[in-house]
């Protein structure tokens, strides 16, 4: 039902405007890089200390000293720069990154985000997620509309521990695009879907105006 992952990533890539500095989270957000419009000048930041992240290396060209925040081997570009973790998060915390795309377990109608722990399960840590959502100018959540058990992930109030409070600006799921700004406004609905289906799959109130 709705968009597939490719379509979701493609839709997300439209939020990367010309001149933007962007941080892509681990997982599906990383794939958005594949859909960037080449006519736009987009610079990718990796919070472990790099601006101007290039594509994954060709075989034999991998460099253990050159990885992204997901510990994947990457490459640099002609305009790349490297810096320390402290300088990297000064950039993030200081509001210099235009857009961050992250995955989520839950997003509330007030923009609260939960994506780092499930009580009772082993916690791996929040990594840089809390810093990103607190510091970056615009936060886009890219996720499946529903959890694997079918339960809605766009909720009135997050039941999971938060990563940030009132931090999410935009949600892109397989079912639509949603703006959070004093409630949730539906910007787009996936083509083969009606309003009612969307409402049924969402706990939070949706504003269609």
């Amino acid at each position: 039902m709705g968009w597939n992952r490719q379509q979701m990533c493609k839709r997300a890539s439209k939020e990367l405007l010309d001149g933007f500095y962007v941080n892509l989270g681990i997982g599906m957000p990383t794939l958005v890089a594949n859909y960037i419009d080449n006519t736009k000048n987009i610079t990718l930041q990796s919070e472990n200390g790099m601006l101007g992240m290039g594509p994954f290396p060709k075989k034999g060209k991998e460099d253990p000293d050159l990885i992204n925040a997901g510990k994947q081997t990457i490459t640099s570009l002609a305009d790349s720069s490297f810096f320390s973790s402290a300088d990297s998060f000064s950039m993030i915390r200081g509001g210099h990154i235009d857009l961050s795309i992250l995955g989520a377990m839950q997003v509330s109608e007030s923009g609260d985000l939960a994506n780092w722990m499930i009580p009772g399960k082993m916690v791996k840590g929040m990594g840089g997620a809390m810093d990103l959502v607190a510091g970056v100018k615009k936060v886009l959540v890219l996720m499946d509309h529903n959890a694997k058990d079918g339960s809605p992930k766009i909720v009135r109030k997050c039941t999971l521990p938060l990563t940030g409070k009132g931090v999410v600006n935009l949600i892109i799921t397989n079912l639509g695009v949603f703006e959070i700004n004093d409630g949730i406004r539906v910007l787009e609905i996936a083509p083969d879907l009606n309003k009612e289906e969307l409402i049924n799959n969402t706990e939070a109130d949706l504003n269609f105006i």
Partner: protein
Amino acid sequence: MIDRVYKKVYKSPKQALDGVLFDGMIIMSGGFGLCGLPENLILALRDTGVKNLTVISNNAGTEGQGLGLLLETRQIKKAISSYVGENKLFEKQYLSGDIELEFNPQGTLAERVRAGGAGIPAFFTATGVGTLVAENKKHESFNGKDYIMETGLVADLSIVKAWKGDKSGNLIYRKTARNFNPVMATAGKITIAEVEELCEIGELEADQIHTPGIYVDRILKGTHYSKAIENLTLSEG
């Protein structure tokens, strides 16, 4: 003008660690995942058997790699990290209560270390406001926005890894192997650096030095760099 004699150079990680270790000490270790790790010093640290360590490091290594080595020997009592996902042994020791864990958001961790090295006992950040991280922390509002107070971190010993270093302790890092190393170099009461290339004075360009020698008490050339890749990812073609 002066023919300086530099007394910072040590022959081996074992010798560099001599006289600075004690049980229960706080150690900072540079590196992000397995990238930019002070591999030789971690190995030597394991062999000394020093225990009950509090280790401040972004990650906890993987099994048999990085700080994972000190988990196998149960030398770590407490870890202050932002992400420990890659280590099953850590998980096991944590769930059995053998190891204490304090999670810090990655940027807060980096800034706490920087603050420690810069003589700043505390600072305010919006990171973590409204989350578990903010619990029991002082809140304050600036220009109508809420922030929490975080404190500076210092260590009894910092171990860092650089690409090139000269005999006065000046360091240059390579690519993303820089990560936490420069800030941790500033926040150790004693800082030991291991380098891939130990240079003569004057070989490094003064404008390009990432860590000035003042922060490095001891320096050694590492002989063993496995430089493991955690997550080899290749593009097609």
